[in-house]
């Protein structure tokens, strides 16, 4: 999935680093991510993959180095709503149903053109469980409910931290299908994972983290 060399990268990092208690969490990073691309963040445990993703999402303060969004210095208020983050915590209210959770998300973010809460929940494999409180769903079903957010909400960049956790083979295939659909439509995604990831669309860009 290569783009023309004149395309401005969606996300670009130059000598990006992060310090905690004055200790660097990862070695300075340089990478570029173009629209339509998938990047795989690889590294051992503790190499700072989660920290990197959280920093890119805006949940951690910017460390040292430069971060560019579409060629200009990243301003949080300008790219709010264009970046979606899915981490270890799913961001779902346990007392509400998937339908209610999604409705709230749509209320804050808006929905992608042509999609509705009901259609997305059916697509994602939660047919029949749309109105069950999330706390009564299985771990795999909870993950699917969280993934439904990604499909429904409009966003250019997906930052996914260990998206395959708690999923069976069908679930893993679903995540891969969603990512491919997203990149085919011009979106971009950064994924961290322990396991091997394979995509139909060819080799993803690889970002190697060193703790």
């Amino acid at each position, binding site marked *: 999935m290569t783009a023309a060399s004149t395309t401005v990268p969606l996300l670009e990092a130059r000598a990006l680093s992060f310090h905690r208690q004055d200790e660097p969490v990862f070695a300075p990073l340089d990478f570029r991510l173009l629209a339509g691309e998938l990047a795989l963040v690889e590294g051992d445990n503790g190499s700072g993959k989660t920290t990197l993703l959280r920093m890119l999402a805006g949940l951690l303060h910017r460390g040292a180095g430069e971060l560019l969004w579409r060629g200009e210095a990243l301003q949080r208020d300008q790219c709010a709503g264009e970046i979606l983050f899915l981490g270890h*915590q*799913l961001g779902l209210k346990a*007392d509400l149903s998937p339908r209610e959770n999604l409705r709230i998300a749509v209320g804050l973010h*808006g929905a992608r053109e042509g999609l509705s809460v009901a259609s997305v929940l059916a697509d994602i494999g939660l047919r029949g469980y749309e109105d069950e409180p999330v706390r009564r769903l299985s771990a795999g079903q909870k993950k699917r409910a969280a993934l439904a957010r990604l499909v429904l909400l409009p966003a*250019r960049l997906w930052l996914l931290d260990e998206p395959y956790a708690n999923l069976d083979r069908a679930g893993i295939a679903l995540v891969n299908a969603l990512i491919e659909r997203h990149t085919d439509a011009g*979106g971009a995604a950064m994924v961290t994972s322990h396991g091997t990831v394979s995509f139909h669309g060819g080799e993803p860009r690889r970002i190697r983290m060193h703790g």
Partner: protein
Amino acid sequence: MAASRDGSACMDKHPPGLAAACAAMLRRDLTLAWRRRGDIAMPVLYALIVTMLFPFALGPEDTLLQRIAGGVVLVTVLLAMLLALDAMFSSDIEDGSLEQLVLAPQPLALMLGMKILAHWITTALPLIVIAPLMAAMLHLPGAVIPVLLLALLLATPLLSLLGAVLVALTAGTRRSGMLLALMLLPLCVPAVIFAAGAVAAAQQGLPWLAPIAWLAAALVLAVVLAPLACAAALRIALDA
């Protein structure tokens, strides 16, 4: 879906307007509180029980109870709200929805303002509803009760707003409720003074509008500033 390289097919709509987002936020928190509506009763029961302790501690003499009634109701409501304040952000922090709120394309201060409003509706409003009962238990003259309710109506949102900033500051720490009390109660002294002062003035037949006006002015200031401070405090607590 069109396979355009710049991804314009993904982003066709602007995020919802402020009014719609505020409504969504408010509906969310009120629905969540209603799902656990048993918890709404806790501060109310606590306040009633504490009020009941005072006659046992001080004797049932009417004139004495009457003199302390306004102040006791006020302080009891304050302490009951303090107990419930901690829960304002705790569930959202645990399941990660607070992080998602920070990332949403809506002004964080406004969204937090809606959370605080929902929290006040579900915590303070029930207390204000039973306040006349608490006042009657302590023999507060009936004519003073409307002033007490007005004072509570102004002082409790002030407490919610100020408390929210401090709870946001301690978000995610291994905090104890005692630390929150230590931080919050000294800052509540002016609100307590003016609210109780209004009730005491009304009880003595003196004009009580001045302290009420001060409370109202403070509330207006807090409504504007506290959500912004709360958003800043949250970002500090999340290390954002």
